[in-house]
């Protein structure tokens, strides 16, 4: 089976997040817990549904990933854009955007 992680949007601010192994939600896909088989994927989905009921996230779903050079990356381009930010605004990428560093009032 293709490796999978769970992605969702955080309820409060809508930002893209990934389910981590400790049950928390990470902004970065590199923090995502990887399922290698159906049973693993089901277990992740179960955790995600609980988080949905707890109003942490909305719309959780499994995405296909692959480990390339030891780094977890989505295999579909759409998910790559979700994981990194708009391709046309590198300044707003997850890695670069730092709202507390003076961008906002």
């Amino acid at each position: 089976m293709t490796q999978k992680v769970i992605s969702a949007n955080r309820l409060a601010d809508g930002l893209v997040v990934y389910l981590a192994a400790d049950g928390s939600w990470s902004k970065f896909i590199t923090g995502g817990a990887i399922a290698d088989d159906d049973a693993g994927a089901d277990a992740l989905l179960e955790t995600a549904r609980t988080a949905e009921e707890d109003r942490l996230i909305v719309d959780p779903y499994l995405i296909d990933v692959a480990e390339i050079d030891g780094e977890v990356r989505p295999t579909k381009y759409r998910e790559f854009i979700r994981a990194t930010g708009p391709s046309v605004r590198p300044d707003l990428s997850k890695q670069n955007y730092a709202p507390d560093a003076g961008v906002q009032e």
Partner: protein
Amino acid sequence: MYIYDEIDQTLVDQRVNQFRDQVRRRISGELSEDEFKPLRLMNGVYLQLHAYMLRVAIPYGTLSAEQLRKLAWIARKYDRGYGHFTTRQNFQYNWPKLEDLPDLLAELASVQMHALQTSGNCIRNVTADQYAGVAADEVVDPRIYAELIRQWSTLHPEFSFLPRKFKIAVTGATADRAAVKVHDIGLVAKRDANGELGFEVTVGGGLGRTPMVGPTIRDFLPEKHLLSYLEAVLRVYNQIGRRDNMYKARIKILVHETGVETFTEMVEREWTEIRDTAVELPAGERTRVAGFFNPPVYDKAKDAAGTLRKHVGEDKAFAHWVDTNVAAHKAEGYAIANISLKPIGGVPGDATAEQMDAVAALAERFSFSEIRITHEQNLVLPHVRQDELYAVWQTLKSYDLHTPNLGLVSDMIACPGMDYCALANARSIPLAQEISERFDDLDRQYDIGELKLKISGCINACGHHHVGHIGILGVDRKGEEYYQITLGGSGAEDASLGEIVGPAFPYDKVVDAVETLVDAYLDIRADGERFLDTYRRVGADPFKEALYGTD
């Protein structure tokens, strides 16, 4: 400009309070996402690829300086310092937080703005010619009627759950700058032989999966019957439009499947029942609303043209901008200044908070505090004295808002595409950027002349690709971005739908393909022909041959 009365303001304020409570209940868990989603959509809040997105209505594309400044302020406080002007004269924030949205909407309400009916199966923001009230070729200011339609359609109980969304566009001019024929209802104001005011009514136009140019179902509708006739059209649609299949639910499918003649008869029958009743437009109300759109008191700018000529003679870059971006105004000594939101290599339709503040300040100083939004994602200062254009341009220049490319190949429409949109199959913006960079030589763009290039990242066609002289549609082919090219579309008064020229291109071949098409046109055009004219004269074959060879 229209100013809210107590009813408008109360309605918008109440809606903010209701939404505040709905958000509170969602966060506290009283509402599930399934329960909350339709409520947030009724307030223009989508969940997009990266975050929530708020779509704000700019009714008929008219904004005050105060409103634009508020949009900028909100962009700084609640978003990431910028926003996006759309092809339906709306404005989108890409990163608002759900928990901030009630405050954000309250800020909008404080300047008479809202996000009502910017989503959902209702009558959406009514759009109009951006040159309304200032165009020389105008019969009447279409905003009078757009505002009346806005009032009639806002929270209209019978039309809040239509089979599908419903878009109305109005123009009062002979040149169609509002793409009215590709709207669910298009209204073109005209006068009959007796000089009476009325409308040509087209119904069932649209883009998306099944593009259609709307057929005319009434050549002349007397002005006083506008609302009862619209009500009749909506009633027929609401009763028999298809609710079983989302892809067949728009009115264009109903008109097409029923047949224009039968559909028209049904509307006329319904109209006979309700005309001259309470749904009719009261004459007093028409006069009251019209009063808000009286032209400003223009100066007697009698030497303005001479001063402009002097500036044009002295500064070549300014002269180019005047040539492309400035249009004739109906008042002597005045001009319409178009502000391109398509800098070379930029994101079509995006504006930073600083740019919005700068335009608001210019509007206050030079344009009676008024700004217009175009469906081609540009801004307009509608009333600038000709002798003040040079000062306007100099300020625009310092905010990178002076690109002299209106109507040229780099003045593209592009939807947000897969960089922002959850529905998209492919990116639009980076393609637009690369195309504009390829054609960055302005002399070359002037030589090419008017060329409307429009890019959509999926079949929903927010980028209007079907009506581009060159249209580009992004498709997903086994996870790869591919782009289908159409030729010969037009969203203007000579509306037509583009035809697919041949097999789609992968992302990295599209810019070359566009250049090949443009070169083919330059080779075969006759004197004075635009790209579209040449295409219509010679057909697709020379362009196919240029793209794919002669096999």
